[in-house]
């Protein structure tokens, strides 16, 4: 995979040779990766590029810098993503305007705004295969003549037309003196109308006269270049309509979520044990899984090393950790080579793989926006709208991309509420894997209790924030993309990319955390800290005073922290309190940094203050109730 950089500055002043601009969800990111060879994360919902991506392409021995801008419907900045695009546009030499061939009339308003910028420009008529399939024929030559800029049909998914697109955009002169007269106001243009033949100009307020004229021109252009062949209602159309109907949509939503959880759990268990089955006898088995590899292959090797080092030595303490009843316990021993390897690879990685597999599947099919539609009324109770569920679901993988994805929301207030809720009540996949694997041993009800507590906290805190966070909270306005069959290779690249990112980022920090814990234990510093926090931890939460260690380590890695509960011999009640507190108490350092960067220092501090209050109250409540 080539090195790719993603930037998230609010007002980038970066210069580019070619800028990709277009509506959300038209395939800009796929086109970008076709041009640059960089693997990007593209999904089937508007706004999957929340920041912008930078890459290079070589042509005629010259190197050109290409930027993939966040999707935007117009150049009038209504949200942060659009502001970024407008900023990027100022410093770009050439524009590739990516439009969706299946809905030309929806994309031309932006195209016209871009043409008005008088920059060197080419239109990529993307998804032209899908347009042909849907019975939409576009006269490319005529369209190009009407707009006065070259139009190249492309299929980003297969790479069709991409080479021609790059050649054309680079062959264009850098400035255009004037553009086609096709866009000049034209008083007697019949209005395009799908259902009736009515052609009078509508009566009504004309607040934006210039835009109205542009609209009429667009209809006239579209009518002259596009022919729609009649098409029967297909099975896919039926399914698409069904999933936004109140009753069936609800059934589909419930089934999709249940199926997703089941698939995550089954895939995760399969990777860990090498076998699959819900009750009793496994249905399917392979001779190895991640856990048997650790137990049968690594353990004997490490036991030999343990004997060589001698159980009292410093090296033994750091590499192997403590022997539990004369044997290595991969959760409790806490050496770099035992728990330091097992926690990220043996316990967490399988769930990271299965989670990202399922969420990528949901992203690519186009189901997430439909879920957003369904949850809109619930999210309204929290001062949000349905689209906020997308960052929240991404936060289940890792809070960092979740908080970055709040950029798809329109206002600061919504971003503050969503980010705060993610950092408090959404446990990341690494933490969840440890909770399921470790607390699950005490009984599934304990795991269910933890999830229920977090969910209730999420909702109640959201409900309170709705009334305390002042400001304009816009409503849901969302284009629902068509369902698409996920492409296997795109899915594979995406899952692989996310897994590699986890391995690269998590394993070093886990090993470092394990090392730090051992050093701190040796110099006995925890005693002083434990004394300081004792009233909160023992009186209010009913936890042993030593549990301050996992709480503090949780700031580095939450999964390691759960592992640290193991030697404390906690009761089930304490395990539940501990897991809930750990989920809420201080987001890990990576999340905290992103929170400050995205919200600003003042809001991040407010968010932290809310977190401290919530964690104290919820921890005490569990202690009282159970």
């Amino acid at each position, binding site marked *: 995979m080539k090195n790719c950089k993603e930037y998230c500055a609010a007002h980038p002043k970066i210069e580019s040779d070619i800028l990709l601009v277009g509506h959300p969800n038209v395939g800009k990111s796929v086109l970008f990766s076709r041009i640059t060879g960089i693997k990007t994360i593209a999904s089937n919902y508007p706004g999957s590029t929340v920041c912008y991506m930078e890459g290079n392409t070589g042509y005629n021995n010259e190197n050109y810098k290409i930027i993939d801008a966040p999707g935007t*419907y*117009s150049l*009038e900045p*209504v949200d942060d993503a659009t502001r970024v695009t407008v900023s990027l546009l100022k410093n770009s030499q050439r524009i590739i305007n990516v439009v969706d061939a*299946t*809905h030309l*009339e*929806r994309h031309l*308003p932006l195209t016209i705004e871009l043409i008005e910028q008088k920059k060197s420009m080419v239109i990529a008529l993307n998804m032209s295969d899908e347009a042909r399939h849907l019975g939409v024929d576009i006269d490319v030559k005529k369209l190009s003549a009407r707009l006065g800029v070259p139009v190249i049909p492309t299929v980003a998914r297969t790479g069709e037309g991409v080479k021609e697109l790059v050649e054309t955009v680079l062959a264009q002169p850098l400035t255009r003196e004037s553009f086609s007269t096709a866009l000049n106001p034209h008083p007697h243009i019949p*209005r395009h*109308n*799908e*259902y*009736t033949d009515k052609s009078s*100009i*509508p009566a*009504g*307020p*004309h*607040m*934006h006269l210039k*835009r*109205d004229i542009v*609209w009429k021109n667009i209809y006239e252009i579209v009518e002259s270049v596009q022919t729609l062949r009649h098409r029967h209602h297909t099975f896919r159309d039926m399914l*698409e*309509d069904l999933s*936004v*109907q*109140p009753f069936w*949509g609800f059934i589909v939503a419930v089934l999709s979520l249940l199926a997703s959880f089941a698939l995550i759990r089954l895939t995760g268990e399969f990777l860990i044990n090498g076998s699959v089955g819900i009750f009793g006898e496994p249905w399917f088995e392979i001779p190895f899984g991640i856990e048997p590899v650790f137990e049968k292959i690594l353990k004997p090797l490490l036991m030999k090393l343990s004997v060589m080092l001698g159980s009292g030595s410093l090296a033994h303490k750091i590499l192997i950790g403590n022997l539990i009843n004369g044997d290595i316990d991969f959760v409790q021993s806490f050496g770099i080579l035992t728990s330091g390897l097992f926690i990220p690879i043996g316990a967490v990685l399988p769930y990271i793989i299965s989670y990202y597999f399922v969420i990528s599947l949901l992203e690519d099919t186009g189901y997430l*926006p439909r879920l*957003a*539609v*369904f949850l*809109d*009324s619930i999210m*309204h109770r929290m001062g949000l*709208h*349905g689209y906020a569920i997308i960052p929240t679901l991404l936060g289940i993988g890792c809070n960092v991309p979740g908080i970055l994805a709040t950029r798809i929301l*329109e206002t600061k207030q919504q971003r503050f509420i969503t980010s705060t809720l993610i950092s408090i009540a959404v446990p990341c996949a690494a933490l969840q894997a440890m909770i399921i694997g470790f607390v699950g041993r005490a009984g599934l009800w304990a795991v269910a209790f933890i999830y229920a507590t977090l969910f209730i906290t999420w909702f109640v805190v959201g409900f309170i924030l709705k009334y305390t966070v002042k400001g*304009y909270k*816009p*409503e*849901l*306005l*969302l*284009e*629902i993309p068509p369902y698409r069959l996920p492409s296997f290779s795109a899915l594979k690249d995406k899952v692989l990319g996310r897994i590699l990112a986890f391995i690269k980022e998590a394993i070093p920090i886990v090993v470092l955390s394990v090392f730090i814990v051992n050093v701190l234990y040796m110099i006995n510093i925890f005693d002083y800290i434990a004394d300081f926090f004792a009233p909160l931890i023992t009186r209010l939460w009913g936890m042993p005073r030593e549990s301050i260690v996992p709480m503090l380590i949780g700031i580095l890695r939450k999964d390691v922290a759960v592992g640290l509960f193991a030697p404390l011999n906690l009761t089930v009640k304490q395990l539940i309190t501990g897991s809930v507190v750990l989920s809420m108490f201080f987001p890990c350092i990576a999340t905290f940094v992103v929170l400050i960067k995205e919200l600003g220092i003042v809001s991040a501090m407010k968010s932290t203050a809310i977190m401290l209050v919530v964690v104290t109250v919820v921890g005490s409540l569990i202690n009282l109730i159970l």
Partner: protein
Amino acid sequence: MSNTLLTELKKGDIAEIIAFAGGVAMLARLKAMGLSEGKIIKKLSDIRMGGPVILLVDRARIAIGKGMANKIIVEKQGNEEL
């Protein structure tokens, strides 16, 4: 036919957008999405309990929050069963 609100249309109703009763910010968002006066829309569904209204406009499906849908004035032109 008389003017009505987008929220009051029934499933399958076809209507023309007449006017918007909202502020400048709302207007800008709706126009960017391709919803402007004179457009013909078809109501696809209505999620109950304060949920959004779903429309077909220019062959694209758009979900609009209830509060916003309540500020869009339309003129019903017919009904086409789904």
